[in-house]
């Protein structure tokens, strides 16, 4: 049954649906790289972004762009709250990374619970229809959702690259990621850079969740499930390596989808855990590509086992 059409279809659909995973992985990897926080509260940002868009478009009947603006605003506001009232306080107290992680976990659960109370558990989408018309390219079905989604993901990667490479704030983010204390000695306002990183992540999250919510149904706990994929991509791609995380998100999507052609479908979900296990045990620094000049400078991976905070 393995024909060219089937392989092409799987590759294309997996590539298109990995668009939001790329954005989630980038957001997670960026905060981990710069703020050195294992930010599971990203799930909370994803949840508020979705329900803000859902409220505007599905409940109030406002246009899609208003929904996206609301998603962006909600995600940014929550990012500010998490950074200013959460991370900053924990940093001031020199809290261990495990406490920071527990804090983010609690935030994600609280927001999921609140969303449940307000919106219930019935799955929802931003637009009433889930069905996107398709066009056949050769024998490959390309839906009207696919092209904009891929466009948004690719543009986001390019813009983020340019932002980190060419803007002052982006360069400061890379500097803080390398060595926060040294960066501060050079006059970089570290706290502002941490906030800027959270805001950048919030934009990526809002984009990703808007894409996801226009294609799939969302429940208050959906974002928590989606986070596993972002975390897996970040770990396998190499902690501190943004582009590795983004690329891994695409590869994982393709491998998971095509795996049913080779293994029993019951094992499909198991693959992600298998990859995670292999990555954590055998490749703790991620899959290393051949040495070359990197787009962003190499950084020291934060110690996830809890061997002490490197924060000032």
């Amino acid at each position: 049954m393995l024909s060219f059409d089937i392989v092409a279809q799987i590759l294309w659909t997996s590539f298109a649906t990995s668009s939001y995973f790329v954005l989630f992985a980038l957001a997670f990897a960026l905060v981990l790289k710069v703020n050195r926080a294992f930010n599971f509260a990203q799930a909370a940002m994803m949840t508020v972004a979705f329900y803000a868009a859902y409220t505007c478009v599905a409940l109030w009947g406002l246009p899609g762009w208003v929904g996206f603006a609301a998603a962006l605003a909600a995600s940014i506001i929550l990012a500010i709250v998490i950074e200013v009232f959460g991370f900053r306080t924990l940093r001031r107290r020199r809290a261990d990374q495990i406490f920071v992680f527990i804090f983010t976990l609690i935030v994600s659960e609280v927001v999921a619970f609140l969303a449940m109370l307000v919106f219930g558990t019935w799955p929802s989408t931003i637009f009433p229809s889930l069905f996107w018309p398709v066009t056949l390219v050769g024998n490959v079905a390309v839906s009207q959702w696919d092209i904009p989604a891929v466009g948004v993901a690719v543009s986001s990667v390019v813009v983020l690259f340019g932002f980190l490479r060419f803007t002052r704030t982006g360069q400061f983010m890379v500097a803080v990621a390398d060595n926060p204390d040294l960066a501060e000695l050079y006059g970089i306002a570290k706290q502002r850079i941490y906030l800027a990183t959270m805001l950048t992540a919030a934009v990526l999250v809002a984009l990703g969740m808007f894409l996801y919510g226009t294609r799939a149904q969302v429940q208050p706990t959906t974002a928590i499930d989606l986070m596993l994929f972002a975390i897996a991509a970040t770990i396998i791609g190499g902690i501190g390596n943004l582009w590795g995380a983004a690329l891994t998100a695409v590869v994982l999507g393709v491998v998971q989808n095509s795996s049913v052609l080779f293994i029993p479908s019951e094992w499909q979900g198991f693959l992600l855990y298998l990859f995670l296990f292999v990555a954590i045990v055998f490749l703790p620094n991620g899959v290393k590509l051949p040495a070359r000049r990197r787009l962003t400078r190499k950084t020291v991976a934060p110690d996830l086992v809890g061997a002490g905070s490197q924060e000032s």
Partner: protein
Amino acid sequence: MMTTRFPTRRALIAAAGFFAGLTITGAMAQETLKFGLAMPLSGGQALYGQDQVKAAEWAVAAINAAGGVNGKKLEMVLLDTRADPQAGIQAANRLVSVEKVPVFVSAWSAVVKAIAPVANDNKVVQLSVGANSADIARLGDYTYTTFPLADVDISAVANHAATKLGKKRAAVLYINNETGVVAAQIYRDVFSKAGGQVVAYEAYDPKASDWTGSLLKVRAANPDIIHIQGLVADTPQVIAQMRQLGLTVPVSSYSAVYNPKLIEQLGKAAEGVIATSLAPGVEDKAVADYVERWRKEVGREPNGLPYTQYLYDAPYIVAAVFKALDDKKLPLTGENFRREMVATKTFDLPLTGRLTINENHTVNKPVFLMEVKNGKWVQLAVVE
């Protein structure tokens, strides 16, 4: 100058007698027949629980407005389970020990299973209304269901596909959890036994958001019907993606997809989708009136309409058994309630029709096969 007169002893005795009389008369007038209702009123399932409770409250009010049970009021003691087994046990203990009810209604499989030992130990009847796990029939002498268990509707839809629709090659696509695995096996067995062939049998991960690989495998098997055993969160997306990949064969599923939202979400891609319902739809006048009452009083249709229909009917079962016991002057104990309910066996209920409770703790109910036609759910067949 004003003086204060103290009451005489005779006046005091007369007053005491008057108030005692009032109290006795009041107690007689207030005599009620109590039963319990343990449902999720808070937490993630409250959306459904609260609507089901409202349906039961309407039924109790209707029964009392029509004279109650032999002139006595029916009283429903309501407690919250949060759909959580531990909270369910606490609620059941209170209903049994404090409220001393002979029967209580509960729902959600995990809660019903957790409560069953409390019901058995105290010889108080638990009526499960809505939980559909096949295990519900094996929880002991004092747990009964009024809701058909999982195998009933899946068997009906598989049989109908093979015998009435003449389908020979079915593909089964199921979610890889307890809901999907067991029901998919039932479909495969029943469809094969009815003369059909299951040409593809594919699971998918509960966290999946893309089903391309599984669907392409199904497409390659060239089925003439596809049965999807998923959840309400993923099934519409699976159908949408199936249609996008050019799979135009009929699709069947079960009660989870029988809701108006599916048509809204899929548009023309929903045409021909077959679902099951375990209660009559709005073609039935009583159900139409009931839905209309929701729209007028609450401003919307109830969440999980069929489940609320079953909850509406539950107090009628309780009232019928209470009446039979009252007629026979038997005390309202759990043992008597159980004996009388099993002896009565058949109940004609306002919103779900005839119910027959079997000795093996299962029930006989018709299955309504619904199909999307011209953008609406219409009744395709009734499988007895």
